[in-house]
Structure formats: C-alpha cells, structure tokens
C-alpha cells in the first residue's frame, strides 16, 4: 500500500506541520501534539477538548474553532493520545470555566483520558467527560468494552460546542453532550481495509465481492462478511440495523450523517445518502438536517457509516448555530 508519507514514525509530526502551515486560524503545538484556536475566546467559557488516534481526519483537529472544539489532541495513528498531551491541552484552553473532555469509548481512549482528567483535577482544573458510544455493531453490556464511539462524535462536538460558545456552565454543556450521544446510533460497512502506515499492509483481506459489516473506525474487521450488494439494499440494511437499536418512531425527526471512511468517492456517498433518505421515508422518519462527506475516517478505508441522531427543536437550534472550523463551517 503506497502512502504519501516520509516515514511511518514521522506521520503525526509531519501532518501537524502541514496543519500548522495550512491553517493560520489554528495554533499547533507540534512537540506536545495539541491543536488549539489561534485566537482565544474573548470571554471565559467552557473549553471543549477532544482527541483520539490519528487517521480519522478531519476528526478532531478539523473541528477546532469558534462554535466547536477549543483543542484537539491527536495520538499516533489509531492510538489514543497520552495523558500528558490531554493535560497540556486542558491547561492551554481552560479559562476557569472548566473543561469538557469528549472521549470516544475505546479502552485506550478511556484510560488515557481518565488519567489526564485525574492529573487536571489535581491541578484544580474543573473537568467533565462525555463518553461517546453510538456504534450499534457492538452490544452494550457490562461483559464487553461497550459500544464504540464513531460518527456521533461530530454531533456531540458541534452541539456541545455551540452551547459552550454561548457561555453555558460546564454541567449543562456536559449534559447536552450526553443527550446528543444518547440520541445517536451509528453503523458502518467497509468495502476495503485500512492500511496503518506502520503495518504497511491492509488490516484484513477482503475478496473482490465481499464487504465487512459492522466495522469500527480503526481498521478492525467487522462483525461479519457479506456479499457486496447494490447501494439500495445495503443502505436499507444499514438504516434498519440502526433503527433496530434506536428509539425512533414514525414522525420523528433526525439529523442524518452519511460519513465516508476515507477511500470512498463523494459521488458514492451521495448515492448512499439518497438510498438512506428513501429508506427512512419508508419508516416515516423525517430528515431534519443532513451531512454527507468524510468526517470520521479510517485512513484509506472504503465504505461508509450512518449516524442518526434523534432531533428536537433545542438540538436543531444548536446544530444550526454558527461554526467556523476547517471541516465544518456555517454562518
């Protein structure tokens, strides 16, 4: 697998140098691996810090900016950031109003952010954590690591970010983040495997006519393999799978995110979105807002994920609030 890199070891540092060069509106601390807004918010506000392994771009660095994150902590490819890094970010952006950590539910992320939260609390920084766990491919049980955090992360960061921007206190910002997460479910299918630069070859082999169903965003294989089918059938299955684990009824409104995993052309994502919309209409579910594109990727993996977030007027109003980040922008 060919990659536009200098060496597997320098991927993160080199990419951060590029982010710094491309985005004067961001401040990039390359040695500490922390991306913050170049211009600090004028008034004290709750600061949102997120992070996770690299390889999911634009998540999270692409969501730093007014209306969304205050800082992102990118780890090595598919590896959660280290506690020091998160602590550095929390220190950099805390204005006294506290810090909300948005954490995707993976063992490594949870442990590293927990250690960071302990360190930050010791320094007197008020910290809350929202754990994102929206992936219905994984059964949520005390016997497992629980559902994974995937596409809903974008919605949690956007909506909690909007509330924080308005000066809401930490408890409220955390609560709306948890509300978005609870209202969200996702599911993903992959047509190809991702290739981690250090591994140098795809994470799994997939025959020319098969897909992995229920994959995560780290190149892990999915729950099972199936034959590739037309987009219409695939989209219908994914919609039905998400709805089966969602408390949505006919008449409900959703925010629908059809997210590319990195290697799928936008043309195909639009085809999928059209079929998702058609299937949701059959279920009587209304799409109130939509998002189509590459937001939570898995390096070069081909495939898509669907996230459906049950919407109400309050969430929609925050979803529509202005945001100005490299990857999500509205005025």
């Amino acid at each position, binding site marked *: 697998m060919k990659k536009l890199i200098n060496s*597997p*070891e320098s991927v993160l540092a080199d990419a951060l140098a590029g982010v710094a060069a491309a985005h004067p509106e961001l401040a990039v601390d390359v040695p500490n691996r922390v991306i913050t807004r170049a211009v600090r918010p004028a008034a004290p506000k709750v600061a949102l810090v997120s992070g996770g*392994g690299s390889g999911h771009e634009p998540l999270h660095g692409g969501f730093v900016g007014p209306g969304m994150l205050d800082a992102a902590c990118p*780890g*090595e*490819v*598919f*590896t*959660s*950031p*280290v*506690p*020091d890094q998160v602590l550095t970010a929390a220190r950099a952006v805390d204005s006294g109003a506290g810090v909300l950590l948005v954490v995707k539910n*993976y*063992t*490594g992320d949870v*442990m*590293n952010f927990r*250690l960071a939260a302990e360190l930050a609390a010791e320094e007197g920084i008020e910290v809350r954590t929202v754990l994102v766990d929206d992936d219905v*491919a*994984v059964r949520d049980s005390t*016997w*497992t*690591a629980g559902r*994974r955090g995937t596409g809903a992360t974008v919605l949690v960061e956007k909506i909690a970010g909007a509330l924080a921007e308005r000066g809401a206190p930490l408890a409220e910002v955390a609560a709306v983040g948890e509300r978005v997460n609870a209202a969200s479910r996702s599911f993903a299918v992959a047509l190809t495997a991702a290739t*981690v630069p*250090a*591994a140098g*070859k795809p*994470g*799994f082999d997939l025959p020319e006519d098969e897909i992995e169903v229920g994959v*995560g965003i*780290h*190149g*892990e*294989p999915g*729950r*099972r393999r199936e034959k590739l089918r037309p987009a219409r059938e695939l989209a219908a299955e994914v919609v039905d799978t998400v709805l089966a684990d969602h408390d949505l009824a006919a008449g409900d409104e959703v925010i629908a995110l059809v997210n590319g995993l990195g290697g799928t052309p936008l043309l195909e994502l639009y085809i999928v979105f059209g079929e998702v919309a058609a299937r949701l209409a059959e279920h009587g579910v209304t799409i109130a807002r939509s998002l189509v594109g590459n937001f939570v990727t898995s390096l070069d993996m081909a495939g898509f994920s669907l996230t459906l977030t049950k919407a109400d007027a309050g969430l929609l109003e925050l979803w529509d609030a202005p945001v100005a980040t490299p990857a999500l922008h509205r005025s």
Partner: protein
Amino acid sequence: MDHDTPDHAGAGTGPSTPEARALDAPLAEAWIRALAAAVDVHQRELTDLDSAIGDGDHGSNLHRGFTAVLAVLDALQPADAGAVLGRTGSTLISKVGGASGPLYGSAFRAMGAALPPSPATPAEFAGALAAGLAAVRRLGGAAPGDKTLVDAYTPALAAFERAVAGGAGLAGAASAAAEAAERGMRATTPLQARKGRASYLGPRSIGHQDPGATSTALLFRTLADVTG
C-alpha cells in the same frame, strides 16, 4: 555461560549466584533493556497479531514506548530497582497511548512503588509483580478469560509465587513464570475476547492469539533471561 552477558549491560554490581540473587537497580535495568530489545525483535509479530483482531499497532506502540524508556534510562541512573521500574512505567504512560500504554505503564509504576529501596528479595519482587497485576485489573477491568494480557500475567504471577514459596530464587521463579506466561498466552487463542478492541469482533476473535498476552510473555521471558 556466564549469566552476566551483554544483555545485562549496565549491571554494575558483581554477579551473585542465581539462587541468592536479589533484584537491584542494575538487574532491573537489565531486564527493561532486554525487554526493549525483545519488543524491537518482535515488533512486527505483535503488530500482525493486533492486525488480526485489533488495529495493528501493538508492536509499534510498545516499540515507541520502550525507545523512550531507553532514552530515559540512558539519561539518568535510577537509584534503585523501584526507581527503574517506576520511571519505566511513567515513561510508558506518557509515550505509548492506546490501551497498552496506561496498562503496562501502571503495572510498572505499581511494581516500582511496591519495591523496597534495598535490593528486593524474590518474595518482595513477587509482591511487586502482584501489585502490577492489581493495577492492570483496576484500570482495565479485565478478568482472566477475557483474552487480554491478564491471561498471561495471572498464571505467570501464580507460578512465580509458587516457586518462591517452594524456595526458588529469582531465576527459578522467573523461569517458571515465563513458562506459565507462554502457556497463558497460547491459551488465549481459543478464547472469545470480552475486553479491548478484539471484543468488537465477537466470535470472530476466536482462533487468534492475543497481542497483549504475547507481549506479557516477552516480559516474563526476558525476566527469566536476565536473572537466569
């Protein structure tokens, strides 16, 4: 063959007989250096195992961590074995990330904290190893049978304790622990994962050896190598 091989580079005290040997700073450092070398040699194998049921980074994660640990050990001379293991742990926590960083990092930190300032007797070291496992279980919440590094660590610790109770020295106990760790490692293959990324695969995780259990086997094998 003299057991004070180049693997023990940095060992400053004279050799003692294996049976009477205590874990002092040079021996602890030799262990960590041997473990770093083993991670270097087995990096690809660990990554390949992680590709099959995880995200393909376990080898590079540990390699990055132990490279940083070597730099830390080169830069300072820890006073005692506890300091060697403690610094190893905190370096792993601040350099590795992922699941293995906090888990191995906490284990070594707990071992370091449990050791006395004086060279540790086999029994004292058994207590430190137990503190390490307790830290892993506290942080990760995994129980034996969940197909994690706990499945190699648990039988290794039990074998170490049994050997010490039977009068074995460090070398004998470590060698028993290494064998038990390797059996535990192999025994992860038929298990279905219930913790960590491999658990996402459900039944498809069956039939693959756990990468973390594999690196834990290296941990005990290198301990046996440097003490034997």
